[in-house]
């Protein structure tokens, strides 16, 4: 624990320093920018809500990537799985009769979102398990396929009124907003926390989780221990895709209430960062998602002082800093255990 804290402290301080240098480059006082950023994000409930909203999608995609990562699979296709979830969730939601009550509409749409994401990723897992196709390649390529299919379907069938937005979903399928100054944060936040808890339970408390992590550590050893590596790969990918697809609940059911081209674009890729930052642990992923969400919402809150590209850049800096500080701390402590302790 102490080791993680030290690494986190180093990473945060280093990122702060890089950010401050960039701020000085554009000629603004760092104290002013950081101060405004923290103040506006945590005292203005609207900005706080926007941070939580961004973190919701990021956390789900992060959990998706983390889960696969622990089974030894690099799911780089959360982007496409999320897009599939958005497509399925919004199409089904719009097809439901307008009077569908929420207790039916919400589970149906959630299932559609998770199912579509799971289907796409499950296919990747199946290709890996049966044909040995590398999951990085097939999931990247499926990102393009899904994006192309949803744009095509949008243009042919879904878009209404000359815009790139589809018909609204049934009112019963809308997730309630949490208020917070008109921000977009909604009940999907609770779903996300439940999903994180479920992943944690599966991971640490069940034999399934044990099997996943065993395959992730050493497939050959897992196989000789009697675990079906192929089965684990397919299941882990499917579960991973379902989590990524669920992020559509936040975007479609809680936010746009309709299909829209490009909804959630880039979230799947940022989810990879959340998973890596959070070191694949569900709690870590949540914290990482909050941090990235803070940079996103805070970046807009200080858009007048510095270009918002600066905070976009900082997201990369933070990930890089964590990646470098963790092994640094590990090595420093291994070298001089007394000094560091």
């Amino acid at each position: 624990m102490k080791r993680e804290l030290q690494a986190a402290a180093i990473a945060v301080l280093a990122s702060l320093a890089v950010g401050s240098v960039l701020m000085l480059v554009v000629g603004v006082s760092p104290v002013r920018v950081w101060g405004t950023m923290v103040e506006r994000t945590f005292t203005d409930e609207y900005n706080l809500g926007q941070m939580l909203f961004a973190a919701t999608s990021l956390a789900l995609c992060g959990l998706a990537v983390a889960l696969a990562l622990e089974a030894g699979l690099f799911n780089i296709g959360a982007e496409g799985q999320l897009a599939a979830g958005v497509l399925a969730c919004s199409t089904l939601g719009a097809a439901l009769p307008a009077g569908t009550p929420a207790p039916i509409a919400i589970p149906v749409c959630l299932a559609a979102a998770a199912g579509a994401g799971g289907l796409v990723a499950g296919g990747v897992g199946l290709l890996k398990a049966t044909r040995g196709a590398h999951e990085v390649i097939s999931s990247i390529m499926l990102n393009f396929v899904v994006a192309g299919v949803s744009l095509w379907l949008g243009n042919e069938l879904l878009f209404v009124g000359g815009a790139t937005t589809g018909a609204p979903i049934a009112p019963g399928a809308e997730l309630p907003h949490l208020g917070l100054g008109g921000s977009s944060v909604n009940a999907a936040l609770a779903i996300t926390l439940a999903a994180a808890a479920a992943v944690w339970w599966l991971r640490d408390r069940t034999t399934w989780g044990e099997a996943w992590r065993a395959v992730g550590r050493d497939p050959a050893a897992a196989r000789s221990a009697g675990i079906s590596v192929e089965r684990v790969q397919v299941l882990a990918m499917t579960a991973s895709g379902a989590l990524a697809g669920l992020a559509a609940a936040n975007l479609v059911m809680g936010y746009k209430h309709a299909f829209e081209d490009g909804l959630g674009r880039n979230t799947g890729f940022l989810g990879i960062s959340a998973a890596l930052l959070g070191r694949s642990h569900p709690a870590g992923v949540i914290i990482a998602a909050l941090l990235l969400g803070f940079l996103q919402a805070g970046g807009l809150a200080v858009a007048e002082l510095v270009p918002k590209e600066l905070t976009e850049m900082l997201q990369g800096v933070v990930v890089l800093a964590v990646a470098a500080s963790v092994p640094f701390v590990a090595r420093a402590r291994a070298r001089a255990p007394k000094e560091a302790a």
Partner: protein
Amino acid sequence: MSVRRLLILLVAINAALFAGGWLFVPAPAPKAGAGVRVGIVFDVGGKNDKSFNEQAYNGLRLAERELGVVGTFIEPTEGVPRETALRALAARTGDDKLDLVVGVGWVFSSDLERLAQLFPDVNFAGVDYAPSSGAGTLPNLVGLRFREHEGSFLVGAAAGLATHTKVVGFVGGMQIPLIKKFEVGYRAGVAHVCPDCRVLAAYAGSDPRAFSNPPLGQQLAGAMYDDDADIIYHASGKTGDGVFAAARRRGQRAIGVDSDQFAIAPCCVMTSMVKRVDLAIVDLVREVIAKKFRGGMRELGLAEQRVGFVADEHNRLLLPPAVVNKVRALSDEIIAGKIQVPWQ
């Protein structure tokens, strides 16, 4: 290096940077003019697209200069979706509260409707706003719509009069009804003065990125010039840069859109169909200052002098006076209602 030493070093570096900034960077002067505050969110292409967004940006600067308003803007990227940007401006409170929030581009239509309901005490305006079916007018949302087909008709007529090969081209951005309006007006203008002229038309794509793809614009325009077109009109935002590049390379003529685009390629830009988004925004700001802002649609065209074509000392050599006179006559006929310009 030990962990502790690194931590101390990093703290020291940060302290130095903070102190340096605190001591040596002057605090930015608070924006003068406690008057009206206006925020704009641009479409893909950004505020310097030399086209539609730039017109809106010029409008904001004009309002800052002449009316003393305080302006702020956001250029959305993939990282910050446009709705989030619009929402961030609308949700400002206290001293930063904005009196008018403008979304530039049809893509903002549905977002504006929802935000106008969510923030009833902020005034919203959408440039090229297309109301969604069933949406009633909101008291705090103005939709600006330009009759681009009228301006396109005029440049179409100019092209029809000036072409040597009797083939002219049209390059559109994203294939949507809004851009179709430009094509339809242009075709009508060409046909009005030159019934046996051919019009080649192509679009750069079916998603918003089609407005920021100069290489594709160059390919499409190059193919048209190869097919004997000698004048190409574009309505494709930043993609039009490629059209001008193709024109420059082949020594052919092109027609700009939204702003006066002569300066991008002085060799070749014969005229431009201008859409005075800048003046329309200044008009809106005036209404806000006078507290006369009323929601609803505004249609702006030739009669309102918010759409037109460019004929000045710069493009004199490319656009002969005879053509200018004929086109001006057509303009008067449209304003008088003698010519009905089709738009779909």
